[in-house]
């Protein structure tokens, strides 16, 4: 039964079965071979996994992201980022990274951020003569910031699976997000040095332009402040802050910016529901898979293995990071969290690792998994906007992935980078 469960999954994935159904199928096959458990657990576990209030933040943050995009906020934030960063070489790429960082403060999804910024910046960079592979790669990499800079769908799921504070995880992502954003801008700069005339700065810096664009972006940035502020002060839970963001965003889009029409809203609801359903179904079937994994006593075996083979917490963290980077290449991050975190959290605790630190490290690692081929959610989006194949873009991704792994090492071995800020706000 264990063998069917664990070897069935990679085979199903390799054949091209969608992640959501592969998890369900592997569990079903294992149950059929095992024989003793009634199959009624299949719908029962799917229901239980979806019947969760914290998970609802997925649906609502997804909608907040599309309101941001269609309500005119994303465009104004991109202009503001342009005023700040237009003076540098490779300015358009830096703007893409900077705008993704700002927009990540509203949306919790890397794919939504990649779509919002990429649909504007990828064509702009191509038109200016930037190397298409680089353009696609840098936008895909910047998309990883979506679930690192709060809010974050990955952290919502992690917090709800492990019963730890989602708010603390969110705030723990701020410093890692800034580090990775900065590193990606360095990648842009280095790439531009041998790039030629196309990469020259787009405009000279002017305070008046910064001020005008900032003023216009305020209502949009206010959405980020409302969401983050509500969580920072403990006024809202993650799900509640998401709903406040949605309502605020509708008000700004409909009556302040007046770019949203009431007739657009039904379509936006359906689209957000569908984009969330992809994740929610994975949450449902991963919950089923994870339940059987736990039932087969696999966690005890894995935990003992990890404890026996890790001399200390540093070795354990290296093992975990390597394992998650590898899984992130082939698996949906949400599924990895649901299946592995109930196993890894107790082991981390036994090594005396701060669980908040561990949670942020895992979230950032799995966000990098959104970028790494062959299975990378933000990579899919960036490639489809740029009309390029993942195979073409892969070599251009290496510098970005390299700097993200350096950032990952920094936050893994310097715990205050992830724990200092959240403990300051939410003790």
């Amino acid at each position, binding site marked *: 039964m264990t063998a069917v469960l664990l070897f069935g999954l990679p085979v199903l994935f390799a*054949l091209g079965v969608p992640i959501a159904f592969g998890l369900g199928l592997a569990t079903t096959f294992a149950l059929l071979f095992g024989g003793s458990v009634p199959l009624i657990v299949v719908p029962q576990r*799917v229901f239980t996994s979806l019947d969760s209030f914290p998970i609802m933040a997925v649906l609502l943050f997804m909608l907040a992201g599309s309101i941001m995009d269609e309500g005119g906020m994303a465009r104004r934030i991109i202009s503001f980022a342009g005023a700040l960063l237009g003076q540098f070489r490779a300015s358009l790429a830096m703007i893409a990274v900077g705008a993704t960082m700002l927009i990540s403060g509203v949306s919790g999804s890397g794919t939504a951020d990649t779509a919002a910024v990429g649909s504007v910046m990828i064509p702009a960079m191509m038109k200016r003569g930037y190397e298409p592979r680089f353009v696609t790669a840098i936008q895909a990499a910047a998309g990883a910031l979506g679930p690192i800079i709060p809010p974050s769908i990955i952290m919502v799921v992690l917090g709800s699976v492990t019963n730890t504070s989602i708010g603390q995880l969110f705030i723990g992502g701020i410093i890692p997000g800034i580090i990775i954003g900065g590193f990606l801008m360095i990648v842009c700069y280095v790439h531009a040095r041998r790039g030629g005339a196309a990469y020259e700065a787009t405009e000279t810096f002017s305070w008046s332009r910064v001020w005008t664009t900032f003023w216009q972006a305020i209502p949009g940035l206010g959405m980020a402040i409302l969401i983050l502020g509500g969580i920072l002060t403990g006024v809202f839970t993650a799900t509640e802050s998401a709903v406040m963001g949605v309502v605020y965003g509708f008000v700004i889009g409909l009556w302040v910016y007046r770019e949203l029409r009431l007739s657009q809203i039904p379509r936006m609801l359906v689209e957000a*529901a569908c984009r*969330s359903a992809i994740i929610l*179904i994975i949450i449902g079937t991963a919950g089923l898979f994870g339940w059987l994994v736990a039932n087969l006593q696999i966690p005890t075996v894995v935990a003992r293995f990890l404890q026996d083979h890790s001399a200390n917490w540093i070795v354990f963290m290296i093992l975990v990071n390597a394992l998650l980077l590898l899984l992130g290449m082939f698996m949906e991050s949400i599924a990895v969290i649901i299946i592995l975190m109930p196993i890894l959290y107790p082991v981390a605790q036994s090594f005396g690792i701060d669980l908040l630190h561990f949670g942020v490290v895992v979230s950032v690692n799995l966000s990098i998994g959104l970028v790494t081929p062959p299975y990378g959610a933000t990579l*899919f989006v960036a490639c489809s906007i740029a009309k390029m194949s993942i195979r073409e873009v892969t070599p251009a991704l290496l510098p970005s992935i390299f700097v993200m792994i350096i950032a990952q090492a920094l936050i893994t071995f310097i715990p205050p980078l992830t724990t200092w800020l959240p403990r300051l706000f939410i003790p």
Partner: protein
Amino acid sequence: MSHALGLLRRAIQLVIIAMFAVLIATVFYQVIGRYLFNAPPSWSEELARFLQVWIALLASALCIQQSMHLGVDYLLYAVPPRGRAALEVLVHLMVSGFLLLLLVQGIKILDVASVQTSPAMEINMWYAYLALPVGAALMLLESVLKLGESLRALRSPA
């Protein structure tokens, strides 16, 4: 046939829109209720959770139609076109098999659910669990349609 399908999909969309709107209103009311009226409603969270289960399963059917559920497609592109068509048939066949199981077991679970009452709203759990067989049936329908498409692709000489 395709007309009926179009109507069905439109109906699914309308149900999703209505449920999502109620979900937003409910959670918003919960926050407002707690801070402005100092009286958090007891039923709001449960209602929102049940709506979420429904939305996830219904929207998932639309996702199958639009091929939005992602997987690793390296092998699909590595094999010759004919092998690719055969692989797609296999994938849709297996997904349909899982959904059929979810449908059958989802109907069975309704019996168990119908004797339970939800703690907050005190409604029959049948209404919440009904999302499973309904969602599974709609997903199965879309998946079988995809299976048909891939079978036609396999038979066609090109």
